[in-house]
């Protein structure tokens, strides 16, 4: 479908990496399960030519000689086809080449040292680093990754980029804190955080976005899952976003999740170049709690931007039915009063779900969006 129709769909970011990719990247011989996984998904998605001698060699146990870069390419092609076949309007590569959104970003920048794993929740962790020197960037990053997606998708590519505030909030601040006269006070911590955010935005992210746009990237999602962590710093989230996008022309979105969105207003209104809020809702939508009622706050503040509507809970294996998705879209439409502003997406990246669960969820999401569109009896005006 085209984005000019109601309720276009998009992903938010990461997908789980297939077993064959993980084993292939390690240079390990593929296990029978990994081989079967490759073959089964390839029958469904046709992401690799089964007659390609390199594919045959890979599957026949010769993965130790398959270059890691080629395995990553197949991983990216797999994810692109996975999302396209699920029927999404906008796709990327499931972040197939990225270790994890934070670690990937700070590995591209100078000044960081990765220290060890910190638990996010349950048995989910991320590798956390400290900034031990001034943030710097040798070269814009992810250009090849974007180029590959651009060359291999029939859909519109949407680039996910970890935002400056999230990078700062997820890092231990040593360098900028130690530059303060005394580091144990609250005021010193705040000054140090601001310097850190602005440096990441200006010295690392903006040059990267500028290079991406020069190569034809038109849709960019700045991921700020940490935005709601310290509501009193909402202005710093915006300052980082504005510094990272200053003078750039693209369709920018800001992804925030698991946050009290109300606490970020009115500060978020100042993110002038942001055209879409892509937010999580489904995780907190229950029989006796309508999570989409929260959208009323946009009306309260007169904010008319697009909304990337989270309709899939990425932390549970329960597959949302098309009816559930449709119901969520319709409730959001009623609150917003303008269905044309709605894009439909998962709450967040589906990386924590198995591929099969993620695929079924996405298929149902696309079907639910289609039903919601049909129920509106014909195409309305497209998203602005």
């Amino acid at each position, binding site marked *: 479908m085209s984005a000019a129709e109601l309720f276009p769909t998009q992903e938010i970011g990461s997908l789980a990496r297939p077993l064959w990719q993980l084993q292939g990247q390690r240079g390990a011989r593929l296990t029978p399960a990994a081989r079967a996984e490759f073959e089964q998904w390839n029958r469904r998605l046709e992401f690799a030519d089964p007659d390609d001698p390199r594919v045959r060699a890979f599957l026949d146990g010769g993965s130790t000689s398959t270059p890691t870069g080629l395995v990553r390419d197949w991983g990216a092609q797999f994810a692109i086809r996975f999302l396209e076949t699920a029927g999404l309007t906008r796709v990327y590569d499931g972040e197939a080449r990225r270790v994890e959104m934070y670690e990937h970003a700070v590995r591209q920048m100078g000044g960081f040292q990765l*220290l060890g*794993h910190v638990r996010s929740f349950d048995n989910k962790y991320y590798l956390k680093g400290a900034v031990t020197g001034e943030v710097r960037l040798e070269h814009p990053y992810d250009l090849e990754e974007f180029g590959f997606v651009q060359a291999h998708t029939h859909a519109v590519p949407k680039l996910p980029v970890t935002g400056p505030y999230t990078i700062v909030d997820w890092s231990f601040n040593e360098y900028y804190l130690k530059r303060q006269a005394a580091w144990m006070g609250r005021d010193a911590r705040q000054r140090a955080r601001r310097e850190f955010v602005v440096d990441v935005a200006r010295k690392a992210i903006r040059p990267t976005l500028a290079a991406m746009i020069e190569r034809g990237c038109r849709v960019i999602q700045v991921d700020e899952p940490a935005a709601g962590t310290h509501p009193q710093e909402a202005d710093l989230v915006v300052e980082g976003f504005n510094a990272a996008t200053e003078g750039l022309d693209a369709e920018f979105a800001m992804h925030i999740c698991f946050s009290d969105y109300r606490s970020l207003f009115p500060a978020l209104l100042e993110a002038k170049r942001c055209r879409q809020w892509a937010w999580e809702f489904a*995780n907190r939508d229950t029989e006796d709690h309508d999570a989409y009622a929260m959208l009323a706050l946009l009306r309260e503040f007169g904010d008319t931007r697009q909304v990337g509507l989270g309709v899939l809970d990425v932390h549970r294996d329960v597959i949302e039915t098309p009816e559930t998705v449709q119901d969520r879209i319709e409730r959001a439409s009623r609150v917003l009063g303008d269905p044309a502003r709605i894009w439909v997406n998962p709450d967040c990246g589906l990386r924590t779900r198995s591929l099969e669960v993620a695929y079924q969820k996405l298929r149902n999401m696309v079907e639910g969006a289609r039903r919601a569109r049909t129920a509106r009896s014909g195409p309305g005006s497209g998203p602005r």
Partner: protein
Amino acid sequence: MEVHTSLTGPFPRSEALVRATRDLDRGRTDEAAVDRLYRSTGDELLGIEDRFQLAPQTGGYLTWADLFRPFAMNWSGFEVGPVTRWFETNTFYRQPILHAPPERVAGSLAPWFPAARASVPAHRAKAALPGPFTFAGMLDNRSGETPEALVHRLGRLLAGEVGELRGLGYRTFQFQEPLLVTRPPVGPAAESTIAAYRSIAEAAGDATSLVWTYFGDAQPALPLLGRLPVSAVGVDLAETEPTSLGRFPPGRGLGFGCLDPRTTLVEDPQEAAARVTAAVDLARPTEVWLGPGGPLDLLPWDAAVRKLAALPATRALLAPNGGSA
């Protein structure tokens, strides 16, 4: 004045445990293997606690997914709910959903506490539990009980746990109460919190009971904290100005969070001791507890261990005679 040093609650999982629990989720290992690693890592941490003279010991509460999970899984009335942000951190908990007035299930929680999880006898271990105010405030209450009644009820239920754990030999109980300082209760909410702690105090008897606050400036809550019938109240020195503690009533115990779990920079014992001394000179506490300003599980394992050295060093500056100042 006695000076004690002890951990505040959950410690980070080691890198080996991180790998093992990930593998468990991915079906690459089994629960028995991960359980063995939990125990050996808990024992390793006991060794570290010994090395840094931290007592009573904790074993790190490594199996707890979050502060409320054992309760939400084992008490009646609860459902383990959605992933929800844990205060102003990049960590999350599954918010318990309370569908009906909760009830204890006797014997269900003891396996979660240190003596059951690591090689430490109960009398040398610290039982760390959610405080009733934080517990009530952080769950999704659909039970029909008012917030005040819920705090009161949770106090009675936690008192039941204290009684049961005392029977198993535990002598020190710490209640985690970040919400008391990030959103201090007033009026009926404050009174119900005090009533909840009265229930707990009755159950605790002559055991040591601590309320530990963190993530917020304790100053606005000091009048309430001073009324809680517990052995000592802990405050986070990264958030609370030591000089504000002059408002804390004299003749009570005080705890000081000297290590900031939100930074990998290692605290200077001289500076930490100076901040504690400034507060002690004003508040004249009967006993002093030194610990992290909140659970250290916001740090990677190695960084957390590095910071621990500041605790005995600070204690040595405050109490050169080895425990008594």
